[in-house]
């Protein structure tokens, strides 16, 4: 068992390395895309910045609090895109027939699809997120404790898992439609956009949806309430862990998709 895991991790790192080596072949494209990724999220930041020039707060959340919120969500999204790009662009794999090749290799399908793409250019977005994050934590007067640092880490890890789950749903649906499904972007890009602000500002219905159905609020709103010191409930700090149920049904759907592919042929 242990040897299996070591071998899988090694193989994944090998995939990452070959992806990075491929990307480095096109230096200009790499730097421009990275810069572009940075600028895209920078513009969103400007949007927030100019709004706060006019208004002092959004539902009594301050500028630095909102920045903290946005940066964590952006970091989660970029990490998921960086590692899970293979699922995000899976329709191409189905259409080009390279998924057939995946099936002729003695490794799990998920590991191979994950390894098929590693999008280093998302580092541009992550740099932007880290800068905002640094500004957010230094200006929002949080009394940092070990538990609060842990909460932020949990948010990032579990949030990445939620986004990755969405990418997997997106890929699994390709087995049936054989094509990309842009409507899924409502949930991925949409979450990134609404996630700029603490999800509590959008009213009860959306908060409920993002708590129970697609658990963004569990990795954003509730734990942040604890970090900001807006609630005494310590268990809010561990809410991100609850969100870990989400990737499970996604994986079930994926399995179902692979099964469908093998019996329908394409």
């Amino acid at each position, binding site marked *: 068992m242990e040897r299996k895991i070591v071998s899988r991790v090694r*193989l994944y790192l090998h995939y990452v390395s070959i992806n990075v080596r491929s990307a480095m*072949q096109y230096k200009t494209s790499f730097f421009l895309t990275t810069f572009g990724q940075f600028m895209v999220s920078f513009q969103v930041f400007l949007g927030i910045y100019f709004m706060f020039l006019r208004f002092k707060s959004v539902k009594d959340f301050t500028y630095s609090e909102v920045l903290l919120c946005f940066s964590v969500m952006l970091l989660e999204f970029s990490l998921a895109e960086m590692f899970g790009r293979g699922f995000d662009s899976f329709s191409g794999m189905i259409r080009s027939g390279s998924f057939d090749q995946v*099936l*002729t*290799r*003695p490794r799990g399908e998920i590991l191979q699809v994950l390894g098929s793409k590693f999008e280093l250019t998302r580092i541009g977005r992550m740099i932007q997120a880290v800068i905002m994050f640094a500004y957010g934590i230094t200006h929002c007067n949080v009394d940092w404790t070990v538990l609060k640092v842990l909460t932020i880490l949990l948010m990032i890890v579990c949030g990445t898992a939620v986004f990755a789950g969405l990418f997997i749903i997106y890929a699994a649906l390709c087995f049936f439609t054989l094509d990309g499904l842009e409507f899924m972007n409502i949930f991925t890009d949409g979450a990134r956009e609404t996630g700029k602000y603490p999800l509590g500002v959008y009213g009860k219905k959306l908060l409920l949806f993002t708590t129970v159905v697609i658990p963004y609020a569990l990795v954003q709103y509730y734990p942040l309430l604890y970090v900001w010191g807006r609630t005494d409930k310590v268990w809010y700090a561990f809410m991100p862990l609850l969100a870990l149920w989400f990737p499970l049904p996604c994986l079930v759907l994926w399995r179902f998709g692979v099964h469908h592919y093998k019996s329908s042929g394409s």
Partner: protein
Amino acid sequence: MITMQDVCKSYKVAKRNAGFGEACKALFRREYETIHALRNVSFTINDGEMVGYIGPNGAGKSSTIKILSGILTPDSGTVLVDGRVPYKDRIRHVAQIGVVFGQRSQLWWDVPVIDSFELLKDVYSIPQKQYDNNLEELTSLLNLSELLRTPARQLSLGQRMRCEIAGSLLHSPKILFLDEPTIGLDAVSKLAVRDFIKKQNELHGTTVILTTHDMQDIEALSKRIILIGKGEILLDGTPEDLKKGGQSIDETVAELYRAYDI
């Protein structure tokens, strides 16, 4: 040993008439047509055999290869490859076979070929010593020493195909499936590929199943031919069986296709 017994496979294909209006209609209501890719296909291939699998486009060649390599699940019938059911025991099965799709590449486009091979070494968990030996042998037989350090995108089709074949043999598979390995190759590369396949079969007793439209491939390589048309096996025999009457093999096959109306 490979056995296929009464294997059937059908696909549902969406159909519509030409035109924009029809395309809009098809968005909401689709008509499906069932295509029988394979009907009661049965054959047995022994270890170390080289079999040419021929038939016109859409006859079911690729479906057969896909079923044997664990990519597809048949609708009915039994498939056994060395005691394994390919589609049920995929991972254990594919560790023992090599597959080359002539129209697709398994090499990473932008990095030197050797980098792709190194990755395959980890994918198949090939022990270092076995990898070194195989790589050395394949390099000399397929004349790869100049190519290994070149990115795949800069190789010619013939050079790339030689690398693809080498890549599918690094893990010493017992069975090699070649789906149109000589498609689009020039004469020199074709000969090199054929020679190599023959040697591989003689040297290691690798079972080879190849699909092709090139009858010279068949003449040069296989002692056995399986002809498939409209999903059914029409002929299973030697190239001599096909060639009765002293015509060239291409003419005979064309005549057969016509005779069977496939």
